[in-house]
C-alpha cells in the first residue's frame, strides 16, 4: 500500500516535470545563494581566526616607539629585567608576504609555532635554521625559503624566529614592537622611566578590523537571508500548487482507504527527499558562487580593512551542513501550511483556479490581519528597537508583513482599476488579472522581497561607500603628509615649505580622557581644509569660528554616543570648560576624538609639539617637492606620505566591493524572475478555460498573448512601486538600527534614484522575459483546445 501510494503521489511529478523542476530549482537556487554567502563569510572568518591566532592581532596591548621606528633590542631586555612581561616582534614584507618574527619562548601561548606540525625541529628553529611556517599558498609565494606548511597560519603570512626575521630584514639588534602579555607581575617599574620613547598601544579589542569587517559580513549575511526568503517563497508556491493539483489523487487515495496520517507522512517524506536533493545541488552551486565571488571579496577586505583573507575556498562542513539544514528547514516551513491545509480542507473541495481564488478570498482576511499586525509591530519597532535582536525583529516583521500585505494591496488596486475601466476588454483584463492574482501572489511576493532586498542592500552599501569616500576626503585632505624626527627637522620643514605650499597644517594630538572616555585631543590650525571638508552629523551655527577661536570643541560620534554628549553640552579639558559645537562622523575609530583650536591646544598642552604635518599644494608638484625637501633639509622621502595616491588606491579597491553586491543583486532578481516564469507556466495550462470565452467573443489569440505579457509587466510594476518604500525602510533599519547596535555608529542614509530606476527596469525586464514564453504559448494555443473548453464541461 505504501509503495502504491508513493507511486501514485510521485506520478504527479512525472506528469508535471516542469513543476518538479520549479520545486527543485527554486529550492536549489535559494540554498545556493544562502550557502554561497555563508561560505564567503565562513571563509573570511576562518582567515581572521587564523590571523588572530598567529599574531594575536588586536588581542594584546603593544609597545611601540613613539615615532614608529624600530627600537633597540636592549630596550626589550631592559624591560624584561624590570619585570615587564613583553615579547618582541620583528616584521616586514617579502615578495608581498607578511613575515613575522617571534620569540616562541616569551610569546603568549597561542602565538607562533607553539604547536608545531609533526616533525618540527624546535632546536633548529631556535638556532637560526631559517624555518618559516605558513600556508601552502604562502609557501608557493616564497619558493626560496624553507616554509613548513602549517594550514592554521594566517593567510599571506609566514612566521619565523625573531633571529631569522632580523637577518632577513637587516634589522640586527632591532625590534619593531613588543606584545604586552596579560597578567603582568607585581611591582614592575614604570614604563615612562624605563623607556620614555615607547608608547602603549592598547589592545584594539573588537573595534578595529573585526568591527569593520563584521559590518561587511553582516551585510552579506542579511543579503543571504533575504535571498533565501525569496527562494522559500518560490518553493512555497510550487508546493502549494502541487498540492492543489494533486487533490484529486488525494481524494482517490483517501477513498481507497489510505489513512490521512500515512498520507501526510508519505507526502512529507517525499518533500524531504526533494529538499535533500535540491539542498545538495544548492550547496554545490553555492560553492561555485562563493568560489567566483571570493577573490573579489578577499581583495575588497584586504584593500578596505587591511585584513588578509585567503583567496581560496575550503569545503567547510559548517556551511554545507547549514546549507542542507536550511534547505530542509525551508521546505518544512513551506510545506507545513500545505500539509496542514490538505489535512483540514474538505475532501471534495474543487481544485481549480476559481476555487483557488475563492479559497484565497477566505484566507485573505487572516492574511490581512497578520500583515496589519506585523506592519504595526514594525512601526512600533522603528521607534523603539535599539539592539541587534530588535533590529532583526524589525527587519523580519517589516518584510513578512509587507509580503503578506502585497496581494491585498494589489487586489485593491486592481479592483479600483476595474471599476474605473470603461471598455469591456479593459474590464475583463482587470477582472481576469484579479482572478489570477492568488496564483501569482507567491511569485510576486518573491519579486517584492528580491526587489526590496536589492533596494535596501544597495542603498546601504552605496551609503557606506559615499560616507567612506567623504570621510577619506575629509581626513586625507592634504596632498602630502610628512613626519619629522625632531624639532630641528620640524623647523627646517616649515621654513622650506613656507613658499612652496599653500599652507602647512601641524597635526598634534594628546591621548587623554574626556568625560571618562579614552580620547585623542587634536589641535587644529584655522584653514579652509577643515572648514570645507569636514561633515558634521550635528552642529551649532558656525562651529569652526568658535572652535578656532578657542571657545568650543568638536567631538566625534563615538565620544558623543558613549558619553551621551551633544551639541551645547560642556566638556572639560585640563580644567578648562568647552562647549561642544559639533559632532562629526569618525568611521572605524575605536576611541573618542576631540578637536580644539591650535592656540588653545598650545596653552593647555604646552609639552606637545607637532611631529606630523599636512601640506596643501598642487597635487602635481608633490613628487618634486618631496625630492627637493630631501635635498634641502635631509628629511628623507620615507618620512612623507603622498595621500592622494593612497586615496586613489583605496577608492579603486572599494569599487570591487560593489561588484560583489551587483553580482548578488543580479542573482536574486534572476531567482525572482524564475519564480514568475514558473508561476505563469503553471497557470497557463489552467487558464485555457478562462481564456476560451474571451477568444470566442472575438479577441485574437495574439491579442490575448499581448495582454498576458502586459499583465505580467503591470503586476511587476505595481510590485516595484510597493518594493521601493519597503526597500528604503529596510535600508533605514540596517543603517540606523542594526549598524548602530552592531558597531556603535550610524551610517547616514543617502538615496540613489537612478539606481532604483535601473533596478525597477531590471525587474520589469525580468518579469517580461518570464512572461514571454507563457504568453507565446497561450497565443499559440490551438483553436481546437480552446473549443474543447466548451464541449468538455467540467
Amino acid at each position, binding site marked *: 500500500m505504501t509503495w502504491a501510494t508513493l507511486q501514485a503521489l510521485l506520478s504527479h511529478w512525472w506528469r508535471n516535470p516542469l513543476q518538479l523542476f520549479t520545486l527543485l530549482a527554486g529550492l536549489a537556487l535559494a540554498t545556493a545563494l544562502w550557502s554561497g554567502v555563508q561560505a564567503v563569510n565562513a571563509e573570511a572568518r576562518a582567515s581572521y581566526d587564523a590571523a588572530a591566532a598567529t599574531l594575536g592581532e588586536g588581542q594584546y596591548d603593544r609597545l611601540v616607539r613613539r615615532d614608529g621606528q624600530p627600537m633597540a*633590542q*636592549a630596550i*626589550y*631586555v631592559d624591560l*624584561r*629585567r*624590570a*619585570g615587564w*612581561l613583553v615579547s618582541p616582534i620583528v616584521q616586514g614584507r617579502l615578495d608581498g608576504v607578511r613575515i613575522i618574527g617571534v*620569540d*616562541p*619562548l*616569551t610569546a603568549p601561548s597561542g602565538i607562533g609555532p607553539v604547536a*608545531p606540525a*609533526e616533525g*618540527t*625541529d*624546535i*632546536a633548529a628553529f*631556535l*638556532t*637560526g635554521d631559517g624555518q618559516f611556517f605558513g600556508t601552502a599558498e604562502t609557501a608557493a609565494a616564497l619558493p626560496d625559503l624553507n616554509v613548513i606548511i602549517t594550514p592554521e597560519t594566517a593567510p599571506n603570512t609566514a612566521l619565523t*624566529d*625573531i*633571529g631569522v626575521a*632580523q637577518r632577513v630584514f637587516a634589522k640586527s639588534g632591532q625590534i619593531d614592537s613588543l606584545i604586552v602579555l596579560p*597578567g*603582568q*607581575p*607585581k*611591582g*614592575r617599574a614604570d614604563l615612562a622611566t624605563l623607556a620614555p620613547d615607547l608608547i602603549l598601544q592598547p589592545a584594539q579589542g573588537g573595534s578595529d578590523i573585526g568591527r569593520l569587517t563584521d559590518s561587511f559580513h553582516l551585510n552579506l549575511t542579511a543579503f543571504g537571508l533575504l535571498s533565501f526568503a525569496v527562494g522559500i517563497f518560490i518553493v512555497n508556491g510550487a508546493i502549494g500548487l502541487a498540492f492543489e493539483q494533486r487533490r484529486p489523487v488525494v481524494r482517490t487515495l483517501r477513498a481507497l482507504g489510505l489513512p490521512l496520517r500515512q498520507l501526510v507522512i508519505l507526502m512529507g517524506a517525499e518533500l524531504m527527499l526533494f529538499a535533500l536533493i535540491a539542498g545538495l545541488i544548492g550547496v554545490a552551486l553555492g560553492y561555485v558562487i562563493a568560489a567566483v565571488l571570493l577573490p573579489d571579496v578577499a581583495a575588497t577586505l584586504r584593500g578596505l580593512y587591511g585584513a588578509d583573507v585567503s583567496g581560496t575556498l575550503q569545503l567547510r562542513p559548517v556551511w554545507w551542513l547549514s546549507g542542507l539544514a536550511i534547505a530542509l528547514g525551508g521546505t518544512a516551513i513551506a510545506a507545513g501550511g500545505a500539509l496542514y491545509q490538505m489535512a483540514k480542507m474538505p475532501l471534495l473541495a474543487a481544485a481549480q483556479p476559481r476555487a483557488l481564488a475563492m479559497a484565497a478570498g477566505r484566507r485573505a482576511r487572516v492574511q490581512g490581519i497578520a500583515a496589519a499586525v506585523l506592519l504595526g509591530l514594525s512601526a512600533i519597532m522603528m521607534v523603539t528597537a535599539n539592539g541587534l535582536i530588535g533590529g532583526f525583529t524589525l527587519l523580519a516583521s517589516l518584510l513578512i508583513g509587507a509580503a503578506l500585505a502585497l496581494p491585498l494591496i494589489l487586489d485593491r488596486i486592481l479592483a479600483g482599476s476595474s471599476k474605473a475601466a470603461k471598455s469591456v476588454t479593459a474590464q475583463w483584463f482587470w477582472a481576469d488579472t484579479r482572478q489570477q492574482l492568488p496564483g501569482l501572489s507567491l511569485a510576486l511576493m518573491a519579486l517584492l522581497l528580491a526587489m526590496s532586498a536589492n533596494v535596501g542592500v544597495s542603498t546601504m552599501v552605496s551609503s557606506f561607500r559615499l560616507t567612506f569616500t567623504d570621510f577619506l576626503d575629509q581626513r586625507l585632505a592634504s596632498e602630502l603628509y610628512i613626519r619629522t624626527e625632531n624639532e630641528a627637522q620640524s623647523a627646517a620643514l616649515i621654513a622650506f615649505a613656507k613658499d612652496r605650499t599653500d599652507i602647512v597644517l601641524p597635526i598634534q594630538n594628546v591621548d587623554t580622557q574626556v568625560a571618562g572616555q579614552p580620547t585623542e585631543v587634536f589641535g587644529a590650525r584655522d584653514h579652509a581644509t577643515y572648514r570645507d571638508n569636514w561633515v558634521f552629523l550635528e552642529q551649532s551655527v558656525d562651529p569652526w569660528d568658535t572652535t578656532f577661536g578657542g571657545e568650543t570643541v568638536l567631538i566625534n560620534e563615538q565620544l558623543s554616543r558613549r558619553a551621551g554628549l551633544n551639541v551645547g553640552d560642556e566638556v572639560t579639558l585640563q580644567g578648562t570648560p568647552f562647549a561642544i559645537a559639533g559632532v562629526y562622523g569618525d568611521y572605524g575609530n575605536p576611541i573618542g576624538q576631540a578637536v580644539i583650536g591650535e592656540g588653545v591646544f598650545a596653552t593647555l598642552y604646552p609639552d606637545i609639539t607637532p611631529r606630523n604635518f599636512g601640506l596643501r599644494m598642487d597635487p602635481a608638484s608633490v613628487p618634486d617637492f618631496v625630492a627637493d625637501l630631501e635635498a634641502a633639509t635631509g628629511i628623507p622621502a620615507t618620512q612623507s606620505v603622498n595621500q592622494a595616491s593612497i586615496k586613489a588606491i583605496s577608492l579603486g579597491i572599494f569599487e570591487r566591493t560593489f561588484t560583489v553586491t551587483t553580482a548578488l543583486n543580479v542573482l536574486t532578481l534572476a531567482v525572482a524572475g524564475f519564480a514568475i516564469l514558473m508561476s505563469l507556466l503553471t497557470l497557463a495550462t489552467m487558464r485555457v478555460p478562462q481564456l476560451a470565452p474571451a477568444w470566442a467573443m472575438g479577441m485574437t489569440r495574439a491579442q490575448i498573448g499581448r495582454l498576458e505579457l502586459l499583465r505580467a509587466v503591470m503586476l511587476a510594476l505595481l510590485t516595484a512601486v510597493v518594493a521601493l518604500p519597503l526597500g528604503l525602510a529596510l535600508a533605514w533599519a540596517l543603517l540606523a538600527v542594526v549598524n548602530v547596535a552592531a558597531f556603535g555608529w550610524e551610517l547616514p542614509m543617502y538615496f540613489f534614484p537612478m539606481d532604483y530606476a535601473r533596478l525597477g527596469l531590471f525587474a520589469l525586464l525580468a518579469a517580461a522575459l518570464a512572461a514571454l514564453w507563457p504568453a507565446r504559448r497561450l497565443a499559440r494555443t490551438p483553436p481546437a483546445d480552446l473549443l474543447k473548453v466548451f464541449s468538455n464541461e467540467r
Partner: protein
Amino acid sequence: MNVKAFLLALFLPCTAMAQGFAGLGTDADGFTVPEPNPQFDFPADHGAHPDYRIEWWYLTANLTAEDGTPYGLQWTLFRSALAPEAGDGWTAPQLWMGHAAVTTPDNHYVTERLARGGIGQAGVTADPFEAWIDDWVLQGDWDTLRMTASAPDFAYDMALTAQGPLIFHGDAGYSVKSAAGQASYYYSQPFFAIEGTLQLPEGDIAVTGNAWLDREWSSQPLADNQTGWDWFSLSFDDGHKMMGFRLQQTDGNNFTSATWISPDGDTTPYTDGALVATPLAMSDDDVPVRWRVELPAQGVDVTVAAINENAWMTTSVPYWEGPVTVTGSHAGIGYLEMTGYE
C-alpha cells in the same frame, strides 16, 4: 638533586622530547661528560658550564611566619643547551627556564619564565655571582645572597646568609645516578638562614627559616630505564641534615643514593640500597604525599608528610614539589620533589 630537571631540561622541544630523551642518556653529542674525582674551582663553578647539556641553580626553603604558619618557597633557574657552546644573539644555543613557587598550608602559587641565552635576558655570571632571568635574581657572594621573583599573583624578596660550608654529594661531588654509571656534578649549600617578605594575595607576610641551594650539571643524567624521581632534603631538629633520592625504574626496582650531613658540614655518602623510601599514602591525584624514609646506617626511620598535598608545579612539564614535616626517629622539616607521576 632534581632529576625532573633532566626531563625539564628538554622543556622546550616538547615534541622533540621523545627523541631528545632517548638520545640523552646514552651519548653526549659533543657535550662534556662528568668525570670522577672532580676538582671544583670557585667562584668559577658557581657560574654556568655551557659545554654541559643541563645545569641548575635550585633553591628550596622552609619558612615560618610570626604566627607560626609554615611556608615553602622555591626559586630555580635551569639551563638547557642545544649545542655545547655559549654563543651570542638570538641563535645562541643556550635556553633558560625559571620556576618560582610559594606553598602555604592551603595554597600553592607557581610561575614560570623562559628566555634565550644570547641576548642578556637570562644567564649566570660567576664573579660577581649573579643568576637571573628577567627581573628574578639570585646574587651575592655565596656567604650572603639576595633572591627575588615575581608573578602576577605573588612575589618575594629574600636575604640569605650561609651558616656552614658547601657540601659535596656522592664521591666528592661526583654523583652517580644509575647502575650503568650515569652521573652528574652535584654540590649544595644546605646551611642558609633566610628571611624576607612574601607578597601573597593574602597580604604581605614576613618570614624566616632555612634554605637549601643545590648546584648540579651534567650531560647524560638518566638511564634509559629510569622514569621518575623522588627526592628528599631533610633538616632534623638536632642539626643533622640528609639528602636522599630514589630513581624509579621500569623494571619496578629503584636506584637510591643518600648523603648524611653533620651540623658542622661533614658528609657521609651512601650508595645504592642504603636508603629505603616507601610510599605510605597517596593524594587525590595519586601522588605519594606520605613516605616512610629509612637510612638504617644512621638509625633514621621517619615519616615524611606533605604540608600541602596539592603542591603541583603546573609548569611546562608538571611535577610535585613542596615542604614536608618529619616525625619518627628524628623530627624536623624538609622538602620533597616527585616526578614521573603526572
